[in-house]
């Protein structure tokens, strides 16, 4: 069982590293190619969110073993301004950074479990999990 890996998200290059590490672990636990692509894409969206909205953050990537199916869990945290209206932030097309507003709503559709904890002034934490089939 591999220990959780913590990666910083401070630059555009870090976003690429998060993608690469997620891809490596997703392949290691035997996720299908489509599921690998989905979790890596979600990781890319969420890492960019942390960078753009909070000026950076970090992610902990953890392999979940021991259950019926293996899984990959990513926890993104930042100490940014937080999200005042989570429901609105999860609405497709809602964007505060001039993007497409697909980052949060889109990544939620790409994973099996999605949990968002945030409050104004208290940063944001997004946990996503993808399970093997």
């Amino acid at each position: 069982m591999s220990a959780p890996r913590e990666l910083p998200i401070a630059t555009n290059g870090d976003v690429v590293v998060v993608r690469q590490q997620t891809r490596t672990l997703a392949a290691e636990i035997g996720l299908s190619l489509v599921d690998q692509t989905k979790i890596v894409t979600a990781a890319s969206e969420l890492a960019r969110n942390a960078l753009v909205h909070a000026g950076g953050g970090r992610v902990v990537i953890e392999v979940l073993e021991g259950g019926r199916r293996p899984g990959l869990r990513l926890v993104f945290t930042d100490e940014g301004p937080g999200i005042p209206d989570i429901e609105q932030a999860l609405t497709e097309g809602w964007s505060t950074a001039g993007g497409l507003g697909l980052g949060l709503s889109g990544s939620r559709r790409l994973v099996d479990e999605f949990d968002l904890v945030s409050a104004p002034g208290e940063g944001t934490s997004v946990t996503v999990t993808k399970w093997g089939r």
Partner: protein
Amino acid sequence: MQRVPILKLGDILIVSIQIDLDDQSVLALQEDLADMVVSTGARGVIIDITAVEIVDSFIGRMFSTIAAITRMLDAETVVVGMRPAVAITLVELGLSLGGVRTALNLEKGVAMLEHVRGGAG
């Protein structure tokens, strides 16, 4: 930041993305392509993403933006070589790449550009 090379073949510009795109490289590619379309008078742009493992909303939007920019500069853009897993993920993400022409491979992309120009001319 890594720069993506742009090749010229006749009046077509070919970009084959072989690196893990970071956001700065994506923006640089947009500007480089716009400059090259004007300086070479190219009528078509082919972006080959055969080697691209993921397309997220930022990279996807780049394709739409490049298509719109080159169209204003009298050149059509075709994205070729998308992997099936990338297509599935893009649709689920909610990105339909409206306004972007796609072809399965480079050869079909070139044929598409010839057809488009033949139809217009």
